[in-house]
C-alpha cells in the first residue's frame, strides 16, 4: 500500500466508524442506566434509514430537505424508543435480569415485519446528500465529500454528549445511575422519567446513525441484526457505559476493517493470506483480544458491587422425578398415537430442550450468561458430521465422540470466559462463537464452508423416524437428567453459591473459577450432544447452527420459559419451536405474530411461563378460604 492508499483507507475507516459510534453510544447509554440489553437498538437504526428515505422524498432533495429529513427521522426514532420504553419495558424492570432482552427481541420481530409491510421488500437506495454528492481529491485519490462530513460528525456528537453528561443535571444523574442504579432511587429521582429520557436520547442516536447512512447504504430489512451485533461489540470493546470508549472502539474497528480490505491478499512465507476475508470476523477478534487483556473494555471500569435492582434469585426446587417419569411415559407413547410429523417436531424439541437446559444451567444457577451458546451446539453438530463423513466413523461412534469435541472447545473458550463476569463474559462467549462460526464458514475444504456438510444420516437401524425419536428422547432426556442431577450435587451447589456471593464462596475456601470452568465444559459437551442428535435428525449441518441466531433462540427459550425454574427452559424450547412451526404455517406475517405472542407472555408472566404459572398456582393455594 502506498502512503496515499493508507491515508484514504484510514479516512474510509473513520467514515465507517461515525455511524457505528452513534449507534453504540446510544446503546451504551441505555445499557449503562437501565442495564437493559436492548436487542431492538439495531431495529431503531434501521427505522432511521427508512424514515430518512421517506422523509427526503416528502421534503425534497434540497440541502434543507435532506438535513431536516435526517434530523426529523432521528427524532421520530427517538419517539419510537420512548414508546417501547413506556409501553413495554417499564412494566418489567423488576423482572429477573436479562428478561428485558426477551421483550426487545420480540420488538425486533415486530418492527421487521412492520418495515416489510410499510416499505416493501425491495432495497431502497436513498439519494446522495445534496451538495455533497461529489468526491474530493486527496493525494490523487477520490473520497466522497459526504464521508469527510461523517468523519467530522463523530467527534462533534462525542463532544455534545460529553457536555450533556458533564454539564447538566440530567447528565449527572445518568452518570450516577450508570455507576450504581440504586443510588438514583436513593437520591429521590423519578426513575421512570430518567429511564424514559435516556431511552429517548439513546434511540435518537440510533436513528441519527441510521439516517446519516442513507447516502451510503440502501434501507433494507437485514440492517437491524447486522448492526446490533456490531454495536454491541463496539460498546463492550469501549467499556460499558463509556461514551469515549465507544468512540475509540468504533474507530479501531472501522479502521481495522478498512485496512483488512486495503491490504487484500498477501503472501507470507509462501502462504497466501486473504485479509479481506477477515472482514467477516475482525470485530469479534478484536473484542476477544481486548476482553482477554482488559476484562472491562478499553475505557470501562469494574462495575461497583453489582447490586441489581432485582431481587436475589429464589431457591431452586429439586425436580420431581415422579412427574418426570410420567412425562417420559407419555413421550414414549407418542409415536403409537400421533402422526409421524408430531414425532419429527418433538425430535427437534428434544434437541432444543437439551440445548436450552444446558444454557440455563450456565446462565441461571451458575450465573454466567452466554450469548454464544450455539458454539457448542454447532461444534457438536459439526463434529458429528465430520467424524461421520470425513473420518468415516460409524454414526454411533460419531454421536458419542461429538460431545467430547464440543467439550474440548469449551475447555479452551471457558478458560478465558470464567475470568470475566456479567455482560463482558457474555460478550466473550459471543466472540468465541462468532470466531468458530467464521472458521467453519470459510474452511470450504474441510467443513463445506457456507453450505455445510451433507449426508449425515443415522445408521440403518436408527433411520426410521420413530426409532430416531426414541434415540433423541433417550439422549436428550439423559442429558437433561444429568444436568439436573449435577445441579443438586455439591458441585451444582458450589455454582449456585458462587453466583449468589463470590465473595463468600472464596471466604469459605472455594476456588470458584475452577468449578465454573468445569461447568462450562459440562454444558458445552451436553449442548454438543444436542447438536449431534440434531445433525443426524436433519441429515445435514450448516453454519447457521453456530450463528448468532441460534444462540439467540437458546436465550429466548430459556427466558420464555423462565430462568428461575428448572423446567422453564424445556417449556420455553417446546413452546418456541412449536409456535414458530405453527405460526409460520398459518400467517404470512408470522414474525410479527411471534413477536406479539412473546410480548404478551412477557407482560403477563414477567417470570417466564413456568415461573408465572408457579406463582399463579401459589396464589391459588394461598387464597383466603
Amino acid at each position, binding site marked *: 500500500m502506498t502512503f496515499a492508499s493508507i491515508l484514504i483507507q484510514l479516512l474510509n475507516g473513520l467514515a465507517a466508524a461515525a455511524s457505528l459510534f452513534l449507534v453504540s453510544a446510544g446503546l451504551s447509554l441505555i445499557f449503562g442506566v437501565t442495564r437493559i440489553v436492548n436487542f431492538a437498538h439495531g431495529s431503531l437504526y434501521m427505522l432511521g434509514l427508512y424514515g430518512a428515505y421517506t422523509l427526503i422524498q416528502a421534503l425534497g432533495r434540497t440541502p434543507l430537505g435532506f438535513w431536516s429529513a435526517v434530523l426529523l427521522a432521528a427524532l421520530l426514532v427517538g419517539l419510537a424508543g420512548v414508546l417501547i420504553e413506556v409501553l413495554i419495558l417499564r412494566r418489567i424492570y423488576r423482572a429477573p435480569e436479562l428478561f428485558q432482552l426477551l421483550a426487545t427481541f420480540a420488538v425486533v420481530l415486530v418492527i421487521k415485519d412492520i418495515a416489510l409491510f410499510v416499505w416493501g421488500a425491495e432495497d431502497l437506495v436513498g439519494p446522495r446528500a445534496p451538495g455533497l454528492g461529489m468526491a474530493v481529491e486527496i493525494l490523487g485519490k477520490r473520497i466522497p465529500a459526504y464521508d469527510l462530513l461523517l468523519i467530522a460528525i463523530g467527534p462533534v456528537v462525542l463532544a455534545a454528549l460529553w457536555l450533556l453528561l458533564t454539564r447538566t443535571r440530567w447528565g449527572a444523574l445518568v452518570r450516577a445511575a450508570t455507576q450504581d442504579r440504586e443510588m438514583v432511587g436513593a437520591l429521590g429521582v423519578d426513575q421512570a422519567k430518567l429511564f424514559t429520557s435516556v431511552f429517548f436520547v439513546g434511540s435518537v442516536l440510533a436513528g441519527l446513525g441510521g439516517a446519516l447512512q442513507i447516502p451510503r447504504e440502501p434501507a433494507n430489512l437485514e440492517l437491524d441484526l447486522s448492526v446490533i451485533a456490531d454495536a454491541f461489540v463496539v460498546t463492550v470493546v469501549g467499556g460499558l457505559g463509556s461514551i469515549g470508549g465507544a468512540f475509540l472502539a468504533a474507530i479501531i474497528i472501522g479502521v481495522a476493517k478498512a485496512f483488512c480490505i486495503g491490504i487484500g491478499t498477501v503472501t507470507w512465507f509462501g502462504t497466501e493470506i486473504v485479509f479481506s476475508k477477515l472482514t467477516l470476523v475482525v470485530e469479534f477478534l478484536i473484542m476477544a483480544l481486548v476482553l482477554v487483556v482488559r476484562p472491562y473494555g478499553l475505557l470501562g471500569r469494574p462495575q461497583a458491587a453489582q447490586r441489581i435492582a432485582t*431481587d*436475589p*434469585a*429464589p*431457591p*431452586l426446587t429439586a425436580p420431581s422425578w415422579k412427574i418426570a417419569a410420567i412425562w417420559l411415559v407419555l413421550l414414549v407413547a407418542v409415536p403409537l398415537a400421533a402422526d409421524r410429523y408430531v414425532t419429527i417436531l418433538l425430535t427437534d424439541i428434544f434437541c432444543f430442550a437439551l440445548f436450552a437446559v444446558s444454557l440455563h444451567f450456565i446462565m441461571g444457577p451458575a450465573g454466567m450468561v452466554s450469548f454464544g451458546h450455539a458454539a457448542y451446539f454447532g461444534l457438536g453438530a459439526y463434529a458429528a458430521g465430520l467424524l461421520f463423513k470425513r473420518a468415516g466413523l460409524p454414526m454411533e461412534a460419531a454421536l458419542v465422540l461429538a460431545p467430547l469435541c464440543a467439550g474440548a472447545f469449551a475447555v479452551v473458550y471457558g478458560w478465558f470466559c470464567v475470568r470475566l463476569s456479567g455482560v463482558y463474559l457474555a460478550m466473550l462467549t459471543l466472540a468465541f462463537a462468532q470466531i468458530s462460526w467464521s472458521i467453519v464458514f470459510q474452511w470450504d475444504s474441510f467443513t463445506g464452508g457456507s453450505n455445510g456438510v451433507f449426508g449425515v444420516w443415522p445408521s440403518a437401524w436408527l433411520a426410521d423416524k420413530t426409532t430416531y425419536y426414541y434415540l433423541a428422547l433417550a439422549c436428550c432426556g439423559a442429558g437433561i437428567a444429568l444436568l439436573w*442431577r*449435577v445441579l*443438586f*450435587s*455439591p*458441585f*451444582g*451447589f*458450589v455454582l*449456585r*453459591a458462587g*453466583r*449468589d*456471593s463470590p*465473595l*463468600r*464462596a*472464596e*471466604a*469459605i*475456601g*472455594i*476456588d470458584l473459577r475452577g*468449578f465454573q470452568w468445569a461447568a462450562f465444559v459440562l454444558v458445552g459437551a451436553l449442548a454438543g450432544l444436542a447438536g449431534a442428535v440434531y445433525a443426524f435428525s436433519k441429515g445435514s449441518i450448516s453454519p447457521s447452527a453456530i450463528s448468532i441466531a441460534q444462540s439467540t433462540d437458546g436465550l429466548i427459550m430459556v427466558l420464555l420459559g423462565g430462568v428461575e425454574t428448572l423446567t422453564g427452559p424445556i417449556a420455553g424450547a417446546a413452546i418456541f419451536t412449536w409456535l414458530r412451526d405453527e405460526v409460520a404455517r398459518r400467517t404470512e406475517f408470522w414474525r410479527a405474530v411471534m413477536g406479539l405472542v412473546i410480548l404478551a407472555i412477557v407482560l403477563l408472566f414477567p417470570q417466564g411461563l413456568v415461573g408465572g404459572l408457579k406463582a399463579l398456582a401459589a396464589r391459588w393455594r394461598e387464597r383466603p378460604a
Partner: protein
Amino acid sequence: MSGAVLQVEGLHKAFGGVQAVADVSFAVSAGEMLALVGPNGAGKSTCFNMLNGQLAPDHGIVRLDGRDIVGLRPSAIWRLGVGRTFQITATFASLSVRENVQMALYSHAGRLRSLLSRFGTAYRAEADGLLQQVGMLDQADRTCGVLAYGDLKRVELAMALANQPRLLLMDEPTAGMAPRERVALMELAAGLARKRAIAVLFTEHDMDVVFSQADRIIVLDRGQLIAGGTPEEVRANPAVRAVYLGGTH
C-alpha cells in the same frame, strides 16, 4: 509474642498517592478478642482485606501460626483456619440457612467436587450443631434471601466457625443491627472464641460493644496505629480522645 495466632508486621498499602495503611503491626493470641477501631476512612477495611488475601499489601508480613500468608488467595487462607464475616453480609441467598453452613462444612472436608452425589445429606448434624450455637437452628430451613439482617450475621458466624478456625476476622459484625442485638451477638462470638480458643480480630463502630467485649483495642487513624492496649488504657489515651472527639480534625 510467640504464642500469637496472627502476627502482623509493618503492613503497608497505598492507593495511587494515598497511604491507606502505613507500617501497621500487631498480634492476636488464641482466645483473645482484639478490636480494631478508628474513624471512617482510617484504613480498617483495607487492613482487613490484606489479612484475608483479598488485597495484596505493598509490603509487610502477615503470619498465621508462624506461617507467612501474604500472597495466598482468600480460599487458601481459609483452608489454613481463618474464618470471616463481612461488613455487608455475604451469604448464599438462594440456599437455605442449613445449606449455607453445610457448604462451609463440605468445603472444609474437601467434598465439593462430587458431581453426582446429592448435596445436603452429609454434615447435617454438624450444621445444626453450629446453628444451635448461634441460635439459628429454628430457622435452619429458611432461605437466606428472606432473613432479617441480624440473623444473616449469625449465619455468617456459623459459617465462619465451620472450619474450626484458629482466627476469626469480623468486619463490623454488628453494623445494621439493633443495639440490644449487637451486644448479644458479640457476647456470643466472645463466648465461642474463648471456649474454642479462637483468636478474634474485629472492627466495630459501636464503642459500647468495643469496650464491653474486647480484651484489647488498637486504634487506627489515617492508616497508622496511634494507640493500643486494654479498654481502660485506650479510653484514657489522649490521642484517641483527640481523634474521636475531633480535637485535631
